[in-house]
């Protein structure tokens, strides 16, 4: 794939989209105008209605022997008695319903005939669907309850007891949240739901126009006559849909945030103030990014299946309902962001947005949401790319779905298969780790590490290679480097730890990183449940083998088929980093992944990575138990020496491969190959 061609396609598609005034008006201008207008009007109407009801004289009917004391109390609070019947009519409920519906009265007070004098029931009939009747009922009930307490107090006094004994418990609620947090919580419940829908709507129209719309207009085939690959076309279109979605999202967040804020301050009389500062806006944008990535990919993938704009709408509508379903999940009572919910696509994003707005988002859960969303988005992009590689779909064939999903996987490890593998691994690791962490105690941490390393990394890597019928020696790079490479491997093993030390020294500036390091030290250090030997085996050797097989094997080899070294090295390092979950550990692992990936790519061997990984991890296990050694290894001179040795090792490893490429089969970027069914 050529980034410059993707850029040209993206620029052209964006220009065309921006010239579509109707789409621009619907996705950008309309939200900017409609929400402030809608919420301002709503706030004004609600506020004025409330004031109107507060000052309104209630029209009341009283049927049956309603106690005089109760009637007096009610009529003392801006009320007038419209009708009074000494007995309750036989069809009381129906008659009351009619009277309220005809606006003759707001409420009807009913006391059954022959009620006992010591406890008189008073029922207040009202219609909750009518704003005025509902509000007056609330007012009357409050007055009656107060009158009841006053009556009880009088009886207690008559019995020679103090009046206060009528209130044995003085119950009162107190809200710990300040007005800003109350407002934020309220906004947080509404805003994510609405923003997700708006994101989906923006993606919906852009995706249809750029896929089914292009097919219908006949311009997609024009594009396919140019020397471009389907993956380049899908990437350009995907980026355009993503850009339009994000711009629309930003406009909507700003517009909605302001509008809801204004409405709250108007409705609450200043009690509930809401302000969305730049930090919150940035946090919301970052939260929305993975959702936008996923939605854009899904909508492009499904949109391209359609032959016409109309067909596109009918294909995408069910998807839009799924988005609504996911969004609704976040506003259900009791819905909150937990590790399990962090894996539910789209719902996780709305829950995280809610937490960001309410000010109690945690970095760990946010990281989980973002990682899982990126994984789902990667799957969406791959689906879109697969759809685009299907000529029947591109040329409006009759059975596009069959063509897309009935094709057999071929071509061994490809960049697509590597990305898909990472996405599958995310799901396996996340869902697998939840029951594992629940079932295993601190004392059994060694077993947990062994199960996760083998179960989440080594076994999937081996199965993936077997499923694609790629020999394990190729998929996992199980071969020795050249002699020069072997020397480089030894040097890398001897000095590679220094890279980690430099990164850790930088990260130690952050309290979060120091706290994480302390937690790891408690778990894996000398006070932890593992002996030094067990630590070296389980934290040093096992990850060195299992994780290297996975990331410097299947992932790197697959990405290496693009023919781009940097894409293979950076891509595999990012994937490796993501699986360390804690944000600080992600940074550390990604940097180490770059060195490990470079060594593996250049040597076409897993060995340098395994050795460096093993030494690096084992060293930290040793240092955690021997503090006197730690100071030596943190010395700038020793670290500098380690870096020099590492550089020498990498220099020797460069171009040391015995075989010419990461995989003997031809590159999938070979033009023309993508259109084969």
């Amino acid at each position, binding site marked *: 794939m050529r980034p410059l061609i993707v850029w040209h396609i993206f620029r052209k598609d964006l220009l065309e989209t921006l010239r579509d005034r109707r789409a621009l008006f619907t996705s950008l201008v309309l939200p900017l105008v409609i929400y402030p207008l809608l919420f301002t009007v709503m706030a004004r109407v609600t506020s004025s209605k409330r004031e109107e009801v507060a000052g309104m004289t209630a029209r009341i009917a009283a049927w049956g022997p309603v106690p005089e004391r109760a009637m007096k109390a009610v009529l003392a609070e801006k009320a007038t008695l419209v009708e009074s019947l000494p007995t309750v009519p036989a069809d009381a409920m129906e008659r009351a319903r009619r009277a309220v519906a005809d606006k003759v009265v707001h409420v009807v007070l009913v006391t059954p005939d022959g009620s006992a004098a010591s406890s008189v029931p008073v029922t207040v009939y009202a219609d909750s669907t009518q704003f005025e009747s509902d509000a007056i009922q609330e007012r009357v009930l409050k007055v009656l309850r107060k009158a009841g307490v006053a009556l009880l107090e009088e009886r207690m006094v008559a019995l020679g007891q103090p009046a206060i004994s009528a209130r044995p418990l003085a119950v009162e609620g107190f809200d710990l949240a300040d007005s800003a947090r109350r407002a934020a919580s309220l906004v947080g419940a509404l805003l994510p739901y609405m923003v997700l829908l708006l994101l989906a709507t923006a993606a919906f129209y852009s995706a249809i126009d750029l896929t089914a719309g292009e097919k219908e207009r*006949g311009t997609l085939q*024009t594009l396919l006559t140019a*020397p471009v690959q389907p993956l380049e076309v899908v990437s350009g279109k995907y980026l355009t849909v993503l850009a339009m979605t994000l711009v629309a999202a930003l406009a909507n967040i700003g517009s909605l945030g302001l509008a809801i804020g204004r409405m709250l301050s108007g409705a609450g009389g200043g009690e509930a103030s809401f302000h969305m500062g730049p930090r919150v806006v940035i946090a919301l944008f970052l939260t929305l990014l993975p959702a936008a990535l996923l939605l854009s990919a899904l909508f492009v993938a499904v949109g391209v299946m359609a032959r016409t704009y109309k067909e596109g709408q009918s294909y995408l509508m069910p998807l839009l309902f799924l988005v609504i379903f996911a969004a609704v999940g976040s506003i259900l009572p009791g819905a909150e962001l937990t590790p399990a919910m962090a894996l539910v696509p789209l719902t996780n994003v709305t829950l995280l947005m809610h937490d960001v707005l309410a000010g109690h988002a945690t970095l760990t859960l946010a990281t989980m949401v973002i990682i899982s969303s990126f994984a789902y988005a990667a799957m969406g992009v791959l689906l879109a790319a697969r759809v685009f590689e299907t000529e029947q779909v591109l040329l409006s064939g009759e059975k596009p779905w069959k063509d897309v999903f009935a094709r057999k996987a071929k071509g061994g490890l490809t960049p697509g298969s590597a990305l898909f593998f990472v996405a599958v691994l995310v799901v396996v690791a996340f869902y697998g780790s939840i029951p594992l962490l629940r079932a295993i105690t601190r004392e059994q941490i060694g077993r947990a590490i062994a199960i996760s390393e083998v179960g989440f990394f080594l076994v999937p890597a081996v199965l993936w290679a077997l499923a694609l019928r790629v020999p394990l020696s190729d998929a996992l790079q199980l071969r020795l480097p050249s002699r020069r490479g072997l020397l480089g491997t030894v040097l890398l093993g001897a000095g590679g730890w220094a890279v980690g030390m430099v990164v850790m020294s930088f990260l130690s500036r952050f309290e979060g990183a120091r706290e994480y390091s302390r937690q790891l030290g408690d778990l894996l250090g000398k006070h932890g449940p593992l002996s030094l030997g067990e630590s070296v085996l389980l934290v040093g050797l096992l990850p060195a083998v299992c994780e290297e097989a996975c990331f410097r094997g299947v992932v790197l080899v697959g990405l290496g088929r693009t023919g781009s070294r940097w894409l293979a090295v950076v891509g595999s390092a990012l994937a490796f980093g993501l699986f360390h979950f804690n944000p600080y550990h992600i940074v550390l692992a990604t940097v180490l992944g770059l060195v490990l990936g470079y060594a593996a790519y250049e040597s076409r061997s897993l060995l340098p990575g395994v050795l460096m990984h093993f030494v690096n991890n084992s060293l930290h296990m040793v240092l955690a138990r021997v503090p006197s050694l730690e100071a030596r290894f943190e010395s700038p001179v020793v670290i500098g020496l380690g870096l020099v040795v590492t550089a020498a090792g990498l220099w020797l490893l460069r171009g040391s491969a015995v075989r010419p490429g990461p995989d003997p089969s031809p590159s999938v970027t070979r033009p*023309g190959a993508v259109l084969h069914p």
Partner: protein
Amino acid sequence: MIEAQGLTKRYGEVEAARSVSFTVNRGEVVGILGPNGAGKTTILRMLAGILTPTEGEARVAGNSASVDAMALKRSLGFLSGDTALYQRLTPREVLRYFGRLNGIDEASLARRIEELVDAFQMRDFANRQCGKLSAGQKQRANVARAFLHDPPALILDEPTNALDVVSGRFLLDAIRKERQRGKAILFSTHVLGDAEVLCDRVLLLHKGQVLDEGAVKDVVARAHAQTLTEAFLNRIGDEA
């Protein structure tokens, strides 16, 4: 220059093209003639690297579609009834876009666009959005798009469709000029009069198979006919 070797395309049980072989040489216009559903578009799409043949091979300027489809597309200008222009872009923007996709550098591209704007008399509408152009103006811009990277081979699928007489004549003249410049041109049309005056050779296609191939006069003679239209109808009649 343009070579079809045993091109076959099957969609399940349906055979859209069956073992079609022919060659178009430099400086030659070959007409591919057939009724609707004869398989013309399928064959042209396979030759343009848009469709993958079930069997056989498509080559343009020595580039095989199955080995290097990108190189094949660079050596080919393709125009068909299904290749429309972007309604919200101007002809100049369309040309710039396709020039960039073909890897032409910006300075050369700017020069080439001006050449084509003059050659196809597009100066009056080159900066007007394609959605606002007439059918003839759109087709001129589209032909300019196909000629833009000055490919050695051209595939033109019914290019005179929906054009008035003046625009149609203009296009046929442009094709002749390209032939004089040594281009290999594969030309499909159902206007047999156009084929008669323009094509050096013709291929009669029916139900995905080549019924006859050769110079217009030879095809007419072999069908015991007076005109190409008559020859065409006779051959289809024989097959039907």
